[in-house]
């Protein structure tokens, strides 16, 4: 008689293989292991708890439905995170938060770069507790526009290349580069501002 291996003892590829064979308990274990990561990505993009929960759960449902398509090119957690990113982008588009950026607008904005550089340096060597720094970054992220936040999250946290970000955000690589630059500049300014506020 073959003994059914407990899901908690299995690694991710084994759980994925079992889930592909229809074992729901294996999929439940994958959810338990990676739900925080998937939720965190949804939250970082949506900045709304309820939406992040709904979209992360939807990502898991889609993950189950598309499991047979997962061939293991990337890790399972990377794959499921990509699903939630796409769902968040779709949702943001539906909410019409995406503003079409004309070339003229972009040029106008970029024209200000020279005047605005250099900007306040956030000084990463500050003796901040890590958790405090993370909280500041999170607050600053919350103050960015959807476009700037998304490009920053996808590049800095998901480590996607310009080309990949452009594809997902349905824009040009030039737009990604521009948005990324302004996102970084705003982040630096916001972090410096938060620091000044706290020191008063």
């Amino acid at each position, binding site marked *: 008689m073959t003994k059914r291996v407990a899901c908690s003892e299995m690694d991710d590829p084994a759980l994925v293989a079992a889930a592909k064979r229809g074992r729901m308990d294996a999929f439940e274990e994958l959810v338990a292991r990676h739900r925080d990561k998937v939720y965190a990505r949804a939250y970082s993009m949506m900045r709304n708890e309820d939406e992040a929960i709904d979209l992360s759960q939807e990502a898991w449902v889609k993950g189950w439905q598309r499991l047979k398509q997962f061939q293991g090119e990337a890790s399972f957690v990377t794959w499921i995170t990509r699903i939630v990113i796409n769902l968040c982008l779709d949702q943001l588009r539906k909410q019409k938060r995406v503003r079409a950026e004309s070339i003229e607008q972009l040029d106008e904005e970029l024209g200000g770069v020279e005047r605005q550089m250099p900007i306040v340096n956030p000084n990463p060597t500050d003796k901040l507790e890590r958790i405090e720094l993370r909280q500041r970054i999170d607050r600053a992220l919350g103050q960015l526009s959807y476009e700037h936040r998304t490009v920053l999250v996808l590049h800095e946290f998901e480590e996607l290349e310009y080309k990949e970000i452009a594809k997902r955000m349905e824009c040009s690589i*030039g737009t990604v580069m521009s948005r990324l630059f302004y996102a970084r500049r705003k982040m630096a300014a916001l972090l410096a501002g938060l620091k000044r506020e706290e020191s008063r």
Partner: protein
Amino acid sequence: MNTEIILKLQAYLDEELTAEEARQVSAWLASDAEAQAVCRHLRDTKALLAGNELPVKVPETQEFYWSKIQREITRLEAASDHEPPPVLARWWMRLAVPLAGVAVLVLLLLMLVKPLSESGALAGSFHEIETQIEEANAISFHSQAAGMTVVWIDSGSN
């Protein structure tokens, strides 16, 4: 410093340039103080963010969170079991019914024609002449090829 150069510096730091472009930027950076300052600023900001995403946890228990996922999976699977066949299959079904009717008709016709060809002494395109009643001088003529039957009756009154 113009926009194009600033974005190129950023791409250099993000390792998005080709090897040749990266070499050019690197050489230029070594001799340009302003570019070095911009580069330092971009690098500091990038370093500040790297690995510093605030860890966030699902504000629900695993059981509650999973129950909604499981319910949705079950609902969708049940729905797909009762789903109508796909468009192509439905189209084929619509075509198949009349085709089946035509096929039955053709089969019936063949069954009707076959016994005639089998019972006759003449196979293929044959003609049959049969006298039904000798006294009455009745003669029938059937042509399989022409698809007609002619019956000629001579009452013998002449």
